């Protein structure tokens, strides 16, 4: 049953083919046996998971089951879980046990789904390889010598390795889509504001968005149905009504207008990866879509803009980690200054420190206008480019990443080349748009992701396109097996 999708499990549970306790036990057993290989989980609470599974079984027996009742899920360790350690991949929060649930967790709990454990991630979600995690990098199940992508690398690896049927992730600049692409799964970053950020530890507040990571678009739709919705405790969450994301999955793609931005197919794109994407686009054409070239004239501003806005917000979001109220505190501080500096010196890793420094610099007196203010102006232009495109096309498509997963350690000494990994995903966050990645082929036996981008609140359409594509292809059904591909 570990091969089942969420949708299949949901049906199986309701038909009594198996109980939630059996399903949960099965995944816990796989995690215990296999996660040593993938390092996908930071923490697992078997007792709590089984207790929740028992409660779910009672609920199913009582005829009161929601679609996700009894489904075990993995959650990125950025979502606060009441009574369960939430580290955000950082030494700073290695001892942090929240007294509250994130809204997303609360919603999954009340839907009756089970928390298998918390997944590995780049520290404070800053990274594209999972290597900045305090707990060591998660591995790519397709090739454990390669990175799973990041920052939601643990979630992607867990789903790809069938250690969980689905997981949550967060996406600030590609952190759901890039690892989904690298691990051969389906991931959706919703429109900014669609999913509550309350209890989701902040990296860059105006860019962060939680979303589902699963094996199919249909599963993502089921997950999003539970995750999405207005939260009065998050002022930036949207009150646009939530649709049933499973309702439109089967819609025909006849007449669908797909825009292909020239910037996403130019220099920098690995040619074999480009080939995969072209074949996937042909498939969509065969399903009734028309392909048109579109232009995003301000694409070249994306990376510099992102690397001002995100670190600027991060630099102040992370000020609260001062050793005073929770989290890591250095031993025997001599005075306040010593408490601050040593706590943060010890608690944060290099990538986090790098971004705090960049962000602090960008906001400093005398530099604010040249950096942060300019970046905000560029951000508006980038967003407008997309809005202009959506005048003439329904969705935009392209590669999720320039190439397949790279080797662990390959970009250790080159943060800028690591930043370039996200060249196709960052703009979506800057524009607040929904974006997806779905499996679209293999290069060097490693998965390649097709990215779909929709207009604001166009999640339903993206899921529909992805679902029809998955009905016509089998990339998403392939699994790496339990370790045959160890490099």
């Amino acid at each position, binding site marked *: 049953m570990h091969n089942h999708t969420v949708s299949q499990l949901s049906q199986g549970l309701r038909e009594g083919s198996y109980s939630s306790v059996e399903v949960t036990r099965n995944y816990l057993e796989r995690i215990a046996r296999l996660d040593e290989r993938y390092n996908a989980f930071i923490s697992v609470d078997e007792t709590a998971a089984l207790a929740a599974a028992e409660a779910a079984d009672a609920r199913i027996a009582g005829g009161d089951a929601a679609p996700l009742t009894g489904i075990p899920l993995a959650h990125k360790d950025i979502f606060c879980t009441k009574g369960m350690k939430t580290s955000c991949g950082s030494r700073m929060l290695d001892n942090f046990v929240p007294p509250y649930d994130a809204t997303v967790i609360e919603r999954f709990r009340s839907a009756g789904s089970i928390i298998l454990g918390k997944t590995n991630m780049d520290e404070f979600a800053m990274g594209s390889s999972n290597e900045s995690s305090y707990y060591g990098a998660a591995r790519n199940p397709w090739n454990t010598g390669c990175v799973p992508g990041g920052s939601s690398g643990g979630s992607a690896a867990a789903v790809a390795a069938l250690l969980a049927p689905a997981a949550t992730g967060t996406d600030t600049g590609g952190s759901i889509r890039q690892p989904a692409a690298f691990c051969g799964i389906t991931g959706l970053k919703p429109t900014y504001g669609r999913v509550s950020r309350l209890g989701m*530890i902040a990296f860059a*507040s*105006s860019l962060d968005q939680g979303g589902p990571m699963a094996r199919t678009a249909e599963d993502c739709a089921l997950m999003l149905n539970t995750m999405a919705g207005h939260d*009065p405790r998050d002022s930036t969450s949207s009150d646009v009504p939530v649709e049933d994301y499973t309702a439109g999955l089967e819609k025909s793609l006849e007449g669908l207008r797909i825009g292909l931005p020239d910037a996403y197919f130019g220099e920098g794109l690995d040619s074999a990866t480009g080939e995969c994407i072209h074949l996937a686009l042909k498939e969509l054409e065969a399903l009734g879509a028309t392909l048109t070239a579109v232009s995003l004239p301000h694409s070249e501003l994306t990376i510099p803009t992102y690397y001002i806005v995100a670190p600027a917000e991060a630099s102040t979001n992370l*000020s609260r980690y001062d050793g005073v*109220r929770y989290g890591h505190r250095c031993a025997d501080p001599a005075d306040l200054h010593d408490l*601050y500096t040593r706590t943060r010196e010890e608690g944060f890793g290099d990538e986090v420190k790098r971004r705090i420094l960049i962000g602090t610099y960008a*906001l400093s*007196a005398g530099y*604010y206008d040249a950096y942060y203010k300019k970046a905000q102006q560029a951000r508006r232009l980038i967003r407008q480019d997309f809005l202009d495109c959506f005048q003439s096309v329904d969705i935009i498509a392209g590669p999720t990443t320039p190439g397949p997963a790279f080797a662990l350690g390959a970009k250790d000494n080159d943060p800028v080349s690591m930043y370039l990994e996200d060249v196709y995903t960052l703009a979506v966050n800057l524009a607040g748009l929904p974006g997806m990645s779905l499996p679209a082929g293999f290069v060097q036996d490693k998965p390649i992701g097709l990215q779909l981008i929709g207009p604001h609140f166009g999640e339903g359409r993206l899921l529909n396109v992805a679902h029809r594509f998955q009905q016509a292809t089998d990339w998403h059904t392939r699994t790496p097996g339990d370790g045959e591909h160890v490099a």
Partner: protein
Amino acid sequence: MNWESVIGLEVHLQLATRSKIFSGSATTFGAEPNTQASAVDLAMPGMLPVLNAEAVHYAVKFGLGIGAKIGKRSIFDRKNYFYPDSPKGYQISQFEAPIVGEGSFEISLPDGSTRSIGITRAHLEEDAGKSLHEDYHGQSGIDLNRAGTPLLEIVSEPDIRDATEAVAYLKALHSLVTYLEISDGNMAEGSMRCDINISLRPQGSSTLGTRAEIKNVNSFRFVEKAIQHEIERQSDILEDGGTIVQETRLYDAQRDETRPMRSKEVANDYRYFPEPDLLPVVIDDAYILAIQHTLPELPTTKRHRFAEAYGLSNYDASVLTDSRPLADYFEVVVATCNDAKIAANWVQVELLGQLNREQTSLAQCPVPAADLGGLITRILDGSISGKIAKQVFEAMWQGEGSADAVIEARGLKQVSDSGALEGIIAEVIAGHPEQVQQFLEADEDRRKKLTGFFVGQVMKASKGQANPQMVNALLAEKLA
């Protein structure tokens, strides 16, 4: 050289909302440390601010109260600095787009004159917690109960010229915000805290000198003393040919001096930028209009009305309109007795004097306004003298009932019966033959003084109840 001081005040006003500006925690003063601090106030990971609509309402009310332009789209910013009582490592404030723009209001000075003081802006922000350094033996405690209490920072133009004006400004501001019921204005509990910007320039000059900022002065008296001290300090330096350093200073009330804050306490680069966790506050005309309709008569308007309608001096009018309850009290007294001047006198001298002696407030006053009006009526209709009225008032204060009840019970009704008075006067004259002789031999001036003596004796004999006008008239007759 003659120096002119230029003063601007920044007042941090605690708004009287029930909950904090960005969380649902209560704002009650004096609770056990950290019992009013939620996960949001503690800046726990993943927690987000949600703006309290009441705080916006109060800020707009203030803006309308000073005739200011209301910011239709105001923006919250993060002001970044590390301090243990600032749990997020930044304070949510407003920087470029405050909720209240330029306005002004009138202050009333002790000499009876008035001046208009400009307000540059007022913006919403959150208060910090408190660091507690006592009782922790080399460590510090942190109380976050106050963290997140809504503040309105009110910035004045540098229109204030001296300590007297600064105090008058603060009193007028206090009166305005309590009229508007947006703050309890309780300075002892820190509801109004004041930063003073002060510089000197040669009399007649129009350029501004270098200023010093004195932080966190928390009473009218300390504001007055801090300014006086600072003016002296700066003029001493300038007279000696020195220059003023732009710096932040602290007022030490015990030593009555200002001194520079340690450099660590001085803010550097706050790295302001728009708070991404909050949306811009968008306010429409309908919202503003709805609040406009709820505004009470404000102190300045009321003062002018009191002066005109009741024929009071500007000073009396300003004392009586200082607080809304007092003004309301006075108006009931006048309505009952129909004599504004006597009413104003009684309220200011007897009532406020008694409240002051007993260290209590009007809300606790045992004498209802209508009863005080009733007492004054009895003076006016001759039932009792002003002197007896004071006794009656004392008894009313002790809970002996209305003026009529006290007069009746104590038999204090003025003796206006000429038969009874003639008897007393006859006794007094008979008892003081020497003085009678002196009177008869005296000139006009001396006679007046001696009349006073006889009136005094009659009043004494009548236990103060004789009608003084009648006593005067009858004495004149008898001694003629």
